């Protein structure tokens, strides 16, 4: 199961497993983000390159206007995958 939701400030909450079957619907939600936002990953259990692709595409779109995503509370396994992919240099991760 995967859920992506936005709060009133435009911050993003990811829950569950962000795999390729969720990419399209997640992209639709991320496309509603128009300014800098926190992506809370405290309930994100799994992410593959499909989910990472959504994050990169959103960061590219936002950064063109001077905005950025800030990723928070990644679990240890996801942190390791992000490290392999060199994503610490692209995203603000706290």
């Amino acid at each position, binding site marked *: 199961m995967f859920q992506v939701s936005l709060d009133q400030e435009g911050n993003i909450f990811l829950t569950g497993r962000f*795999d390729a079957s969720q990419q399209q619907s997640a992209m639709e939600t991320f496309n509603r983000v128009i300014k800098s936002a926190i992506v809370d990953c405290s309930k994100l259990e799994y992410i593959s390159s*499909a989910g990472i692709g959504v994050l990169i*595409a959103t960061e590219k779109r936002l950064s063109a206007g001077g905005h950025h995503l800030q990723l928070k509370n990644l679990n240890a*396994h996801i942190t390791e995958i992000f490290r392999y*992919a*060199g994503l610490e240099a*692209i995203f603000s991760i706290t």
Partner: protein
Amino acid sequence: MQQLFPRSIQSLDSIFELVDQFRIQYDLDQKTAYEIELAIEEVFTNLVKYNDGTSQISLQIEIINTRLTIVLQDFDVDDFDITRPPPVDPQARLEERRVGGLGLFLVHKVMDQVEYQYQNRVSTITMIKKIGEDLCSK
């Protein structure tokens, strides 16, 4: 464990259920289970996207001694080695980042060996990972 899965991204849920059974059977840790799921998802989705077959895709997972072996087979397809993606530079800046190839780049990171074989119109991708010796007895 071996099972056939429909050629669809929607098969991922069933694939993850199979991996979870495997994880429980061998008492695998969460890190290893994550890496198995990631490797299978990335290869399976590439087979679905880039191969031209219509058959179901076979997935086999086994552990013999300290070797975890994952085999994905795609039947009646043309010869196309998906295990050789375009190069990915993990140091690239955001504007230079391409999503294509990242999944298979990660597969090579989490697996010790990734091999492609093509014979009789069957594409076989074999991934091997060395695991802890405490699993030898299972």
